[in-house]
C-alpha cells in the first residue's frame, strides 16, 4: 500500500464542518440550562469596597456567585497560583471577574449584569513596560518582574573594542488579538460536593482539569473536561478557558443546574488574553567584512497583571532572539514585567514573533550601516550544521539557510524586483518594496519541557478491526484528527477510514500534553506512531496476524485477539531522545529537539498619499522536515502568513486606562479576502528527529517571519525607518512626512 504520510488526505471531520452539523459549544443544549455572565472590574487597580445590586431586577431568581462561594481555593492553577478565579479584596486589572450571575433568560441575565455596581477605592495603575521597569508603582512582587532570563555565550563585553561597526536599535510590537471566529464558551454541570463536568471550546483539556481540581477541592477523577468542536484557538484558548470553566462550574455548583457561559465578541476581546506587547533593544558588533562579533539583546514583554504563562512565552522569545545566525559572543537578557492590563498570553509563535521581528528588522538596518545588501549580511552569518546557537546548542540536524534563501529568491525574482522597484520608485507615488526575514522556530516545549510533560497516547483496537486513537491533543482546525489518522493508518498498513480519533475527554483519553508549541504532529504524532507499531507487533507476535496482511486479515486478528485476551491496547509515554541536555540554571543547552527553518519574502505597495500599505505577493520557503499532509501544511502556512500580515500592518489594539477600546470586529481590523496576497508556499524537506517520518513542528513558524518581512519591504519601498508594528497608515503617514517636503 502507498504510504499515507505525505499525501493530502482530506480532513477527517470535514463533512460535519461543510454541512453545518459539527457541534460547537454554543450548539449544545441541556434541559433547564441557565445562562451565565460575568461582572467585571471597570477600573485597572484598586480595593473593592462594596458590591451593590440595583433594584428593578428580580435578584431572587438569580444564582449569584462571588469569591466567598468558592468551595476550596480561589486561584486558577497554572504555573504559580497568583491569579484569583474571582477578585476578592482587590482588582489588578480592568475586566477582572468579580461577580457571576446565572438565570434561565439570557436577555434578563444581561440586564442584570449592568445592574451590579462595584464601589472601589482606586490605586494608581501602570500600563507600560517603561513604567513597570522604572517601578513607578510596584504592582507585583518586589520589583514588577515576573521572570528574567539571561542567555550568555562567549564574552560580549570584551567584543566591542574590536568591532569595525556597532549598530544599535530599539523595536516594539503591539498586543494582538487571536481572533478565533468562534468566541470562547463553556457549559458546566456539577453536583455540589460531588463532581464537576465541563464541555468547552478549548485547546488543552488537562490544563482546565488541573485548574478545576484546587478550586473545588475534589479528587481528580471527580472532574471531567470534554472538548467540543473548537472554532479556532491560536493560543487564545490555551489558558483562558480554565477561567471560564471555573466560572461556569461555580454557577452550576451553586444552582444545581447546567450553566452555559458564552462570551460575546466584545467581552472576548476585552477580557481574554492577547499577544504580549514587547520592547527589544539591540546592540550589534561586526567585523569589517560584516561578520557578527557580538549581539547584546534586551528583550522585555508586558505580561499584564498576573504571572499566567508569561515566563514561558518569555523563554521562547529570549531563545529565538538571536535567530539562525552564528555569533561568538551573545547576551540576551529577557524580562517579563507586570502592568495593570488583563494578562497577556499564548498566541501562535509564543514570544518568538516579537523577538524575531526585532532581530530581522534590526539586521536590515545593520546591513545598511555596514554597506552590505540585506541578504549578503545574512549569508555571511547563517549558522551551519555543527555550529553553536546563542543558547550553546550544537545544530545536529541538517540545515541550509542559504538554500532556503536561494529557493525563495528564485521563486519571487527577488533581485530583479529589488533593483526595478528602486528604479521605478523615484518617479512613482505608489512605491513598491521587497523585503524578507530569515528565521528558525523550535518545535515542542523548551528545554526539559517535553521530558517533564512525559506525554501519553493510547491506541485501542475494537473486535471489528477499528483502531481508536486516544490522545489529549485537540483538533481546532489545524488538522490533528487527520494527521493522527494518517500516522496511525500508515504505521498499521490500514486505510484511513479504519482509524477513529476520539474526542478529547479527560475521562477517557490520556494526557498528551497541551495542544500548543508546534508539538502535536512531532511529539504526539510520534507517540501515535510508536503506539501503532506496538499494537501491530502485539498482533504479529500473537501469531494471529501474518506479515503482508490486508484490512480484512487485520480485522480478523483483532476479533480473535480481543476474544482471547479481552482488549487490545497500546499505551506509550514520551521519552526524551538520548543526548539532549538542558541546563535551566545557566539557560543553555538543547533548547529544542528540532527546528523549523525559513526564509519569507514580502512584496508591498505603499500609496504615499494615503500611507496605505498593500501586500502584493508573499513567498514562504521553509524546512519543517517531512510534510505529513501537504494540503494541510500549506494551509497552516497560508493562515499563519495572513495572521502575520495582520500583526504587521492591520491589527492595532487601542488602549485607554488599561482597557481595550476597539473591542469590535468593526474597529479591530484583521485581514479579509481582499487583503491577502497570493502566497507561494514551498517546502524543502530535511526530515529529522522524533516526529513521524522526520516531521518537525510547523504551526507557529509562519507567525515569526511574516511581520519583519513586511516591515522590511515597507522600509525598502519608502526609505523610512520602521521600528514598530503594526505599521498602520496613521503611524506611517507621519514617518512619510519628509517625503512630502
Amino acid at each position, binding site marked *: 500500500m502507498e504510504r499515507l504520510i505525505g499525501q493530502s488526505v482530506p480532513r477527517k471531520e470535514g463533512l460535519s464542518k*461543510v454541512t453545518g452539523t459539527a457541534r460547537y459549544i454554543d450548539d449544545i443544549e441541556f434541559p433547564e440550562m441557565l445562562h451565565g455572565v460575568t461582572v467585571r472590574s471597570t477600573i485597572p487597580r484598586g480595593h473593592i469596597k462594596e458590591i451593590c445590586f440595583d433594584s428593578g431586577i428580580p435578584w431572587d431568581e438569580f444564582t449569584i456567585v462571588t469569591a466567598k462561594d468558592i468551595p476550596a481555593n480561589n486561584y486558577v492553577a497554572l504555573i504559580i497560583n497568583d491569579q484569583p478565579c474571582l477578585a476578592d479584596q482587590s482588582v489588578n486589572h480592568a475586566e477582572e471577574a468579580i461577580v457571576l450571575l446565572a438565570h434561565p433568560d439570557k436577555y434578563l441575565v444581561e440586564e442584570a449584569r449592568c445592574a451590579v455596581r462595584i464601589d472601589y477605592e482606586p490605586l494608581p495603575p501602570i500600563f507600560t513596560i517603561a513604567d513597570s521597569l522604572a517601578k513607578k508603582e510596584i504592582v507585583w512582587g518586589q520589583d514588577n518582574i515576573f521572570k528574567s532570563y539571561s542567555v550568555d555565550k562567549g564574552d560580549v563585553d570584551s567584543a566591542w573594542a574590536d568591532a569595525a561597526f556597532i549598530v544599535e536599535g530599539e523595536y516594539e510590537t503591539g498586543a494582538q488579538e487571536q481572533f478565533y471566529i468562534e468566541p470562547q464558551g463553556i457549559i458546566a454541570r456539577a453536583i455540589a460536593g460531588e463532581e464537576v463536568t465541563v464541555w468547552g471550546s478549548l485547546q488543552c483539556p488537562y490544563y482546565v482539569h488541573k485548574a478545576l481540581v484546587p478550586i473545588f477541592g475534589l479528587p481528580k477523577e471527580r472532574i471531567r473536561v470534554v472538548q467540543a468542536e473548537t472554532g479556532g484557538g491560536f493560543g487564545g484558548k490555551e489558558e483562558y478557558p480554565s477561567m471560564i470553566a471555573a466560572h461556569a462550574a461555580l454557577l452550576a455548583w451553586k444552582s444545581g443546574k447546567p450553566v452555559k457561559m458564552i462570551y460575546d465578541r466584545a467581552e472576548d476581546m476585552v477580557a481574554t488574553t492577547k499577544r504580549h506587547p514587547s520592547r527589544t533593544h539591540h546592540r550589534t558588533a561586526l567585523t569589517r567584512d560584516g561578520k557578527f562579533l557580538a549581539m547584546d539583546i534586551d528583550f522585555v514583554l508586558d505580561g499584564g497583571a498576573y504571572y499566567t504563562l508569561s515566563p514561558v512565552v518569555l523563554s521562547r522569545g529570549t531563545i529565538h532572539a538571536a535567530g539562525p545566525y552564528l555569533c561568538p559572543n551573545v547576551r540576551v537578557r529577557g524580562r517579563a514585567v507586570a502592568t495593570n492590563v488583563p494578562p497577556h498570553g499564548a498566541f501562535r509563535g509564543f514570544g518568538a514573533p516579537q523577538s524575531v521581528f526585532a532581530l530581522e528588522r534590526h539586521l536590515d538596518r545593520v546591513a545598511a550601516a555596514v554597506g552590505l545588501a540585506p541578504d549578503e549580511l545574512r549569508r555571511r552569518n547563517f549558522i551551519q550544521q555543527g555550529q553553536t546557537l546563542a543558547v550553546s546548542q550544537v545544530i545536529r540536524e541538517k540545515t541550509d539557510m542559504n538554500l532556503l534563501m536561494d529557493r525563495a529568491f528564485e521563486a519571487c525574482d527577488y533581485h530583479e524586483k529589488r533593483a526595478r522597484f528602486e528604479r521605478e520608485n523615484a518617479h512613482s507615488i505608489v512605491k513598491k518594496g521587497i523585503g524578507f526575514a530569515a528565521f528558525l522556530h523550535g518545535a515542542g516545549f523548551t528545554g526539559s519541557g517535553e521530558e517533564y510533560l512525559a506525554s501519553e497516547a493510547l491506541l485501542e483496537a475494537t473486535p471489528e478491526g477499528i483502531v481508536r486513537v486516544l490522545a489529549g491533543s485537540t483538533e481546532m482546525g489545524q488538522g490533528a484528527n487527520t494527521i493522527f489518522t494518517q500516522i496511525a493508518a500508515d504505521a498499521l498498513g490500514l486505510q484511513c477510514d479504519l482509524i477513529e480519533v476520539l474526542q478529547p475527554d479527560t475521562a477517557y483519553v490520556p494526557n498528551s500534553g497541551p495542544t500548543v508549541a508546534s508539538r502535536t504532529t512531532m511529539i504526539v504524532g510520534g507517540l501515535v506512531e510508536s503506539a501503532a507499531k506496538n499494537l501491530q507487533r502485539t498482533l504479529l507476535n500473537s501469531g494471529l496476524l501474518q506479515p503482508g496482511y490486508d484490512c480484512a486479515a487485520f480485522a480478523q486478528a483483532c476479533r480473535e485477539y480481543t476474544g482471547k485476551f479481552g482488549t487490545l491496547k497500546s499505551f506509550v509515554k514520551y521519552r526524551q531522545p538520548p543526548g539532549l541536555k538542558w541546563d535551566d540554571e545557566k539557560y543553555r543547552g538543547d533548547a529544542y529537539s528540532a527546528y523549523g527553518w525559513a526564509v519569507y519574502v514580502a512584496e508591498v505597495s505603499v500609496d504615499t498619499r494615503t500611507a496605505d500599505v498593500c501586500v502584493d505577493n508573499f513567498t514562504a520557503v521553509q524546512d519543517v522536515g517531512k510534510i505529513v499532509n501537504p494540503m494541510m501544511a500549506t494551509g497552516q502556512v*497560508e493562515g499563519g502568513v495572513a495572521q502575520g500580515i495582520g500583526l504587521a500592518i492591520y491589527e492595532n489594539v487601542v488602549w485607554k486606562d488599561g482597557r481595550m477600546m476597539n473591542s469590535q470586529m468593526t474597529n479591530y481590523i484583521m485581514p479579509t*479576502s481582499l487583503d491577502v496576497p497570493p502566497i507561494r508556499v514551498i517546502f524543502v524537506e530535511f526530515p529529522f528527529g522524533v516526529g513521524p517520518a522526520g516531521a518537525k513542528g510547523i504551526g507557529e513558524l509562519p507567525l515569526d517571519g511574516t511581520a519583519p518581512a513586511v516591515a522590511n519591504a515597507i522600509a525598502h519601498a519608502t526609505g523610512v525607518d520602521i521600528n514598530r508594528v503594526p505599521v498602520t497608515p496613521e503611524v506611517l503617514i507621519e514617518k512619510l512626512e519628509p517625503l512630502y517636503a
Partner: protein
Amino acid sequence: MPECPRGGKVRVSCTVNGKPAAFEANPMARFLDVLREELRLTGTKEGCGEGECGACAIEMNGELVNSCLVPALQVEGASIRTIEGIARGSTLDAVQQSFLDHGGAQCGICTPGMILAAVNLLERYPHPSEAQVREALAGNLCRCTGYIKIFDSVLGACREAGPPR
C-alpha cells in the same frame, strides 16, 4: 404584517430550506437566534453579532444576508436558505465537496457562512474570476486559512460544474 397574538411577540411564517416554517418571536429578535434556538438550525454561527464576520450568513429571498442583523419580523413570507439546505439529501453541493477537496475548511466555524456566500456568488456568476471571488467573500472573515484554500475551493467548484457556457 404578521399578526401579533400576545406578549409583544409576533407570529412569523416563512419557508426555510424549502419547507414551511412558523415561529413566534419578539419582532426585533435577531433571526440568527430564531434559527438557532427556535428552529434548532445551529449550522448558522455567530462570530460577532454586528454583521462584520459573515459566520451567520444565510440566503433570504436569494440575497446573501447576515442573519444577526435581520429582525424576526422581516422574515415574514421570506424564503430562507441555510447551510442545512445546501446539500441535496446526502449528496453534497459542488461547493461543499470542493471545500473538502481543497482544504477550504479548517476550524469550520466560518465555513457555513463561507459556503453560503460562495453558493450565492456562483448562482449569480457561475464562472467568476478570482477577483470576483475575493470581492464576494469580503464580508466573511476566516482566521485559519488565509483565504487562499477558500479561493481554491470556490474556483474548484466552478471547474467541477463544467466549462463556461
